[in-house]
């Protein structure tokens, strides 16, 4: 089974995140990494292939540094990588991003399965998987916390607040996974040593037959017109316990609508 995993390179949530003048997330001047939520998709792909056969290709769309996300997945064990990188992609919204991803998946070949994470840890819209499935004409099973593949179909369990659903779809399909599905592995020494020799292709828009006007600010349906950085966290309130600590705590929780 051949699998394409879509992974996003995001700013490290531990460091400060900033916006560029054009209101896009600053991805170049900050520490970045493979979106943690996408590690689950990589792990699931590796498990599926290890239990049977086939190859895992990791795909990312992003600026030059985004190749680090691909490399991390290769160190975890993925077989090859594709990095779509083109200045014209800057400013793409979810719709335009999904168009680039769709063209890249088509160029990679016809995978049996496309895997994505639950949401990126920076944009966090959770819409790219659905858009991508639609563009590829694939059935989509998103937000699954358990996945099995047998006899040409996938079965996934989606947990909601009120029920657990089991959803089935025929292959090829797109599946989005949650952080409950597995425990991503650490890149092993062998993985690290082998990654150097694994192929990573870099494609531009023209390699995908796309035009600059179809992506970026121009090709996007939506545009961020304003951003306000969240104000710095305020200093906490210290309440000395003068025998009435419990009462004060309950008052605080009540006031903050936490109980």
């Amino acid at each position, binding site marked *: 089974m051949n699998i394409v995993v879509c992974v996003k390179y995001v700013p490290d949530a531990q460091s400060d995140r900033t916006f560029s003048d054009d209101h896009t997330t600053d991805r170049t001047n900050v520490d970045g990494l493979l979106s943690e939520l996408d590690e689950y998709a990589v792990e699931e792909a590796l498990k599926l292939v290890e239990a049977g056969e086939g190859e895992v290709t990791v795909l990312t769309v992003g600026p030059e540094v985004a190749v680090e996300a691909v490399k991390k997945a290769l160190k975890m064990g993925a077989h090859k990588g594709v990095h779509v990188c083109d200045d014209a992609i800057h400013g793409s919204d979810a719709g335009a991003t999904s168009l680039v991803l769709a063209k890249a998946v088509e160029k990679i070949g016809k995978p049996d399965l496309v895997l994505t994470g639950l949401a990126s840890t920076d944009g966090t819209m959770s819409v790219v998987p659905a858009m991508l499935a639609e563009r590829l004409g694939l059935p989509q099973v998103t937000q699954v916390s358990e996945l099995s593949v047998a006899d040409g179909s996938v079965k996934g369990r989606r947990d909601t607040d009120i029920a657990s659903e089991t959803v089935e779809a025929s292959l090829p399909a797109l599946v989005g996974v949650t952080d409950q599905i597995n425990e991503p592995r*650490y890149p*092993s*020494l062998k993985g*690290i*040593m082998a990654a150097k020799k694994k192929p990573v292709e870099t494609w531009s828009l023209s390699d995908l037959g796309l035009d600059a006007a179809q992506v970026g600010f121009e090709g996007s349906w939506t545009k961020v017109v304003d951003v306000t950085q969240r104000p710095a966290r305020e200093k906490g309130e210290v309440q000395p316990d003068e025998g009435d600590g419990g009462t004060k705590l309950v008052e605080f929780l009540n006031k903050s609508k936490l109980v």
Partner: protein
Amino acid sequence: MTAHPALDKLTAIDSLLSEEERDLATTVRSFADDKLRPYLADWFEAGEIPAREIAQQLGALGVLGMHLDGYECAGASATMYGLACQELEAADSGLRSLMSVQGSLAMTAIHHFGSEEQKQEWLPRMAAGEALGCFGLTEPDFGSDPAGMRTRAKRDGDDWVINGSKMWITNGTVADVAVVWAQTDDKIRGFVVPTDTKGFTATEVKHKLSLRASKTAGLSFEDMRLPGSAVLPEVSGLRGPLTCLSEARFGIIFGAMGAARDCLETALEYAGSRIIYDKPLAGFQLTQAKLADMTLELMKGQLLALHIGRQKDAGTLQPAQVSVGKLNNCREAIKIARECRTILAANGITLDYPVLRHANNLESVMTYEGTSEVHQLIVGQALTGEAAFR
């Protein structure tokens, strides 16, 4: 994770590493921070560790016997092995000991001196952490001077029969296989002993004040009968065990600096947030003098470790250089750990912080794989040509 950006910036050790080396350090560090560090205080207090589970996790990371070639071992560089030791020992010397004894002592003995069958039988499982090994050289009365060992192996037809005992054997009670060194009618020979062999007993050493997150045992052999195929065919004499010890010593040069770095990171963090006389402890000159001096020794020790690692990878390393590294880095690491303890004061004596745990562990690290005195004698001999051991 206690990483301290200002310290990393000052030492800039990362700039001397390749991407692959940095990646390995990062992976071992993340593993240790997520899977080991949260439990260390409890393991140390209880004197218990889930050795098997940890071995399997280390096996999955690929660090057991990582510097060996073939038999499912990764064939990584010596420097890479050193860096793995450093990151594991930043968590706890006991866990690094588990890796050293498995990879550098037991696996190296089988890899370098074993028969093809011995290698096939043990190395892949040991690399995966499915089988655990120990290394029995020291005896109750013979530590620094192993040549005097009393454990004897006698031929009986094709078989060997071993009688005697070993002491201070790391992993002894949890091992599946022991590499045991014994005196024969000819020379000292090594034996590959499955621990379920009749006549083999391992007894845990209790009441340790150091390396509590590591299992230490006494071994005893009573008419322990082994087939002829159990002997390590490719070596006789002390060269066998000493070759393995040299590998493990090398890892300690890096490892000790991991423990020291963890202490210094902890002390820096603590000094920055502890308010004394209305200002942070870090703002006092006496504290800064301690922090500055410790940083110098950490940085020098890290550079020394890398220098020795690069020499080993280039094939130019002399045994006395390993002694220089082990002597200096253990000695400085324990000084740093103790000095950091003074910065944490009362908090420093608890298991809520790693500093006294590291300091206590480093007492063992200074002792095993050749005591500081023995390494002074080796360096002295290299310099003067005079052997002053006896």
